[in-house]
């Protein structure tokens, strides 16, 4: 392990696993939404829901890891950037919960229960209700595009730190830490 401040293995694993899940679930959701009804669509919708449930299952241990270990202190940057980073991270955590939950609510309201991996039935959060289903669908969509914007900002900031500021903001979260320096 390098001597410079870095995130714990658990924090880095949770971060990149979450990134991978969201990177798979988001485009899948956009793509499947416009498909005409077919066996492929039903399969893709199920995979999308499984990914969403996986996000929900991961967020709890991730929050535990985040609260149990103080992350490395932010590297020097203007105050507005530090405040923006704190707000972005808080919103990202909130959306990692709100996005899958609105998807689950939407499924329940539309009368399609969620069966995780095709074996574990999740309880319906609300009864079947067409109007409610459309409301949750709209909420799911809006929150997803908000998430997309925030993830974009998050990535842009990480790259700015890495390539312009040339600090270790990104390095300390990478799956494999550099041993030099």
């Amino acid at each position: 392990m390098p001597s410079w401040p870095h995130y714990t293995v658990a924090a880095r694993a949770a971060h990149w696993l979450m990134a991978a899940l969201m990177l798979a679930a988001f485009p899948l959701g956009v793509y499947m939404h416009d498909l005409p009804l077919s066996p492929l669509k039903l399969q893709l919708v199920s995979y999308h829901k499984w990914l969403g449930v996986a996000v929900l299952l991961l967020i709890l241990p991730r929050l535990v890891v985040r609260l149990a270990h103080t992350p490395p202190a932010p590297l020097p940057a203007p105050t507005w950037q530090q405040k923006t980073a704190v707000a972005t991270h808080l919103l990202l955590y909130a959306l990692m919960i709100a996005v899958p939950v609105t998807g689950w609510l939407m499924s329940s309201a539309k009368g399609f229960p969620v069966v995780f991996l095709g074996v574990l039935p999740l309880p319906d959060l609300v009864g079947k209700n067409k109007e409610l289903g459309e409301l949750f669908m709209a909420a799911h969509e809006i929150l997803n595009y908000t998430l997309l914007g925030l993830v974009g900002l998050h990535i842009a900031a990480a790259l700015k730190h890495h390539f312009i500021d040339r600090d270790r903001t990104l390095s300390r979260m990478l799956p494999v830490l550099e041993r030099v320096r």
Partner: protein
Amino acid sequence: MNAPLSFNAALLAIALPLASGALAAGLEQVFNHVQADKTRVDFVFKQMNVPIEGHFGKVRTDLVFDAAAPAKSSVRLELDLASIDAGSSEANSEVLGKPWFNVKDNPTATFVSTAVKPLGGNRFEVVGNLSLKGKTQPLTAPVTVTRQGDTATFDGGFTLKRLEFAIGDGMWADTSVVANDVDVRFHAVARSATAK
């Protein structure tokens, strides 16, 4: 002339209630006035192992349940396939098409019983033929009859193998996406002949 008249009247006064009582006792055993608004055909199918509930809105039921001689009972069900609710508007329009019910050529499904066998208690086995999408196959379904006064409630169900009737063929024949087994339940209410 007065005496025979009053004798007749007295006879009638005794005979009528007896006769109507006997008639009622005999007829209240036969339930054949179907309460259409209380009759339902529901089903549950699984897609990607997710149970989806549906039902048919229009069901025509003719049934005669003879409590004293159950073997004389019979039932005929006619489903208006276009009245299906398969869980979503997308599915509702899909299942009307050729790979599924092909309602244009086969607008109805019918079940006609050929025998009713008592299974003991209030349980019976209804044997008959189901005609669906141009195919007719024998079908057996257990039915529970609950009687309350002049009303009898019939609850039964069976598992339909959808591919035996080519329901959802072509690309939909993959049972790993839409399961072959469809649980069908029916619920009917009929009143006895003496009831209004």
